[in-house]
């Protein structure tokens, strides 16, 4: 498998805080790659670097787009979707005053075929493009079972459904690489299982590479091919889920051991 995305020596500094420190990893085409780590480790910051919401202080990100190898760090934020990278957000960033369908159709923006004048006059081309976009959005709705909510305003939907709508909106861009920021946070057991199945389907049926940030270790072990553990902006461990979960450094920083509790017991006594 070849490398789809490769980050080299990424660092980003916000004022005095070094949020990400010399992080390097690569995501192979077709795999599910997960970032884990405690809060504040810099995982979402890495995502924001890839989406070009932030600019790295040092380091580069290379991406294998359909036009060849591109230096992602040179691209502006609005070009990222056109290159085939889509993302979801940790705190849902949906378009609140629009319907679910509307949100999904906005996801189709990069596949736009009409110019301003064609839109204003709603020519035959515009109509055909609209119907095609509608069909594609419908495919995503089928994939995620959102039929029931198609015409509901996002503002009135429960949290679990919103997470799925955000996933759907990202899928509508027909990406090569999908960035999922904590897909199961706030979801109950059933919804998390659904999410796991969807991630597997996205990888196997749709052939999309998934890069995700996750805290739920069961979900991580179930769907990931490789895991990267981060702590305080630095790389701690990289490998298969099994390897990373048994890595002593990761256990100490993030997963926790039985030893920690016995320390407390001794102190209390």
């Amino acid at each position, binding site marked *: 498998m070849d490398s789809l995305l490769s980050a080299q020596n990424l660092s980003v500094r916000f004022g005095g805080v070094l949020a990400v420190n010399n992080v390097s990893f690569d995501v192979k085409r077709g795999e599910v790659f997960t970032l884990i780590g405690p809060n504040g480790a810099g995982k*979402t910051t890495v995502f*924001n670097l890839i989406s070009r*919401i932030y600019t790295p202080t040092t380091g580069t990100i290379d991406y294998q787009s359909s036009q060849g190898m591109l230096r992602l760090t040179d691209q502006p934020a609005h070009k990222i979707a056109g290159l085939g990278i889509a993302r979801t*957000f*940790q*705190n849902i*960033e949906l378009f609140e005053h629009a319907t679910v369908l509307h949100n999904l159709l906005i996801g189709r923006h990069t596949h736009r075929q009409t110019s301003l004048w064609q839109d204003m006059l709603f020519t035959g081309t515009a109509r055909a493009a609209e119907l095609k976009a509608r069909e594609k959005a419908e495919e995503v709705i089928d994939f995620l079972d959102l039929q029931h909510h198609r015409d509901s305003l996002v503002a009135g939907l429960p949290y679990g459904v919103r997470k799925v709508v955000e996933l759907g909106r990202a899928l509508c861009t027909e990406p090569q690489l999908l960035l999922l920021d904590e897909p199961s946070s706030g979801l109950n057991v059933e919804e998390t299982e659904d999410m796991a199945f969807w991630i597997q389907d996205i990888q196997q049926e749709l052939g999309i590479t998934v890069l995700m940030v996750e805290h739920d270790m069961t979900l991580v072990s179930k769907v990931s091919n490789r895991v990267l553990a981060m702590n305080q902006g630095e790389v701690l461990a990289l490998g298969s889920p099994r390897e990373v979960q048994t890595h002593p450094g990761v256990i100490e920083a993030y997963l926790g051991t039985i030893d920690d509790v016995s320390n407390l017991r001794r102190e209390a006594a």
Partner: protein
Amino acid sequence: MQFLQLVISGISQGCIYGLIALGFVLIYKATETVSFAQGELMMLGAFCGLGVMTFLEYPFWVAVLASIAAMALFGILLERAVIRPILGQPAFSIVMLTIGIGYVLRGLVTTIPGIGTETHSLPVPYKDMAFNLGALTLNAEQLVVIGSTAVLCGALFALFKYSKLGIAMQASSQNQLAAYYMGIPVKPLNGLVWGLASAVAAVAGLLLAPITFVHANMGFIGLKAFPAAVVGGFGSLPGAIVGGLIIGVVESLSGFYLPDGFKDTAAYIVVLVMLMVQPNGLFGERLRKKV
């Protein structure tokens, strides 16, 4: 000498802009809403002072204190009646509401038979007093404006930085729900902020009255205070005053040195330049959503 004279008169005018801008910034800092009614509140404060002095025939200092107290109360009541129900609505709606309040206040004042439609002068004790410092002529009115502004600013700065009240105000503006959880009485606090802003507006009105006379359209000066607040950075109290001073001085100088028409638009040209160079004003904060 002419230059210095112009600068001083600019500073004094700028202090007025700064005081009104201070009112905006107070409300914005505490509740993150922009109030377009400050100008009209200032006008109301001036009329209050006029009423107490000419109709109730009380001396100047009583009138000042009475106006400030009355306006503070009015501000609290206004907040309770009209602003509180709409908190949480998009910023634009709140702005339109305050514009509506301005319209109502202006209309009500012009309705008062006889007084409302006329221009009055406020009989202040230091009226027409002037000092000569060498070749400079310093108007007592201008000096009083500058002095009072300085005192008021110091007091407000201390309030926000050192008192629990000030910190509570800042907390409730940044995250209202969290402030509720922390036991901060958010609603009365908002009322207090509006009361404070109205009191500041009353002071501005009383200070401005000797210079521009008291009339129902005084409030339009409030529109020039917006560029002042923006130049200083919306959300910074010292910024409001600094912004006001800059606008006042630029206006004064351009009225003399530049051709006709620049005096009125000077404030707006300054603010546009500032927004191009430093979008968040001189002391403003970065506005960016963290995702």
